[in-house]
């Protein structure tokens, strides 16, 4: 079997979707976690960290039941929105978002906490509203946090395996991501192909981690 670049395309698309969705979704969440002193915060925050330590098979098991056309969420999407979640790209995007949630959230939270409170107070004192302060003061001052969140989430999604294996169904061009392609090549004793996929993944992941480290180094030097 010759080299097939399609699984890479699927993985990249998955990475882009998951990263974009999480970036938008996590910002308000991270803001609340960073700023709110509510007693419920630690409870919710622990819940959002759970995918970091939970076995992907547990996540995959619940998602399979939930996203199936016979499950609550899957049935709603199929009947009302006419989108099939089980064994579909939309399904693995949802799974990827859940699995990568802690990576984006913690990076953004750290970023928000890193913005000096004095800057915010100054902005508020000068009569700027919350939204304008966030857009013009907070975001420009937490760029490294945002980049860290993006790189971390994207890299992690690229390596996503367990959940996708359980709910993806390995459909070529749709849900067969590159980590599954490696797994299938190894299982069918096609090591040459597995080597190519694996080597590319190593290089890409190394690049991501290197970028993250460089970013952190710059941060601490400042």
């Amino acid at each position, binding site marked *: 079997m010759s080299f097939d670049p399609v699984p890479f395309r699927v993985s990249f698309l998955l990475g882009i979707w998951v990263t974009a969705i999480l970036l938008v979704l996590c910002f308000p969440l991270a803001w609340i976690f960073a700023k709110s002193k509510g007693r419920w915060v630690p409870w919710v925050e622990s819940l959002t960290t759970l995918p970091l330590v939970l076995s992907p098979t547990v996540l995959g098991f619940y998602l399979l039941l939930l996203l199936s056309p016979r499950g609550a969420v899957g049935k709603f999407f199929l009947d009302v929105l006419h989108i099939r979640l089980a*064994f579909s790209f939309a399904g693995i995007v949802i799974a990827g978002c859940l699995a990568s949630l802690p990576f984006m959230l913690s990076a953004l939270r750290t970023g928000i906490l890193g913005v000096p409170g004095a800057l915010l107070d100054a902005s508020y004192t000068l009569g700027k509203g919350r939204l304008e302060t966030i857009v013009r003061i907070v975001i420009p001052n937490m760029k490294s946090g945002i980049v860290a969140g993006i790189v971390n989430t994207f890299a992690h999604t690229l390596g996503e395996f367990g959940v996708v294996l359980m709910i993806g169904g*390995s*459909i070529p061009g749709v849900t067969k991501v590159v980590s599954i392609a490696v797994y*299938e090549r190894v*299982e069918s004793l096609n090591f040459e192909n597995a080597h190519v996929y694996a080597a590319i993944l190593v290089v890409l992941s190394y690049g991501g981690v290197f970028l993250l480290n460089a970013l952190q180094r710059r941060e601490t030097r400042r």
Partner: protein
Amino acid sequence: MRKALVVVPALVLCLSFLPAQGRVSIAAASNISAVAPALSDSFERIYPAFRAEFTFGASGALATQIINGAPFDIFMSADTSFPQRLVEAGETEGPVRVYAVGELILLTTQKLDLSKGLAVLADPAVAQFANSNPETAPYGRAAQEALQNAGLFDRVKPKLVVAQSVTQALQFTLTSADAGFVSKSALYSREVKAYDREWEYWFAVDPSLYSPINQGFVVMRGGATGPAVVAFARFLLSREARAVFAAFGYGFP
């Protein structure tokens, strides 16, 4: 006291590496998982001193593990080509022997018109159907062959969901897909009992559409001398084992 803290775990660790004389560890194709309890019951009734321990996976996955040093005594594949590769790699003691012939069925949990045969997969009522990866799972290979020979493969391919083993195909069929190709033995598992109504929830795929699923086993070189291993290899070809396989829908060459 403190010595015991070191010695006891060390002893346990050492013991766990000793070869267990009375045990035979078997790497078995996933379609065997339904039969395995009955198989080991029968085995242990004949040889009360021995125990059979099963590990399940797609045949290709297990063959890969064995070639890379997984310490199994016997490999029960769902075909003859994966064990043949182990024979050629010099990992086995003796040739591949066929212990049963598998039967492929199409299973559904929905109300489908199964009288159409495989063509039912082209119906709009079937949005997705599951099959196991033909590269690693012999039942998946047989199903793909049947679809190709029936001239349906290209038409139904967009609805195909690929499972990593025939048991995952069963799991997909029971949870989310509208139909799926599984082994006939699956009908005898507890979860599927409710759907064991031929032509309502399943039908046997016409055997002339696919090459016979001859399921072969090999004895691995490392385990060949253990008495339990020898006993199990002999048992697999015995009348008693055949009776168990026959009760689970398997045929014989």
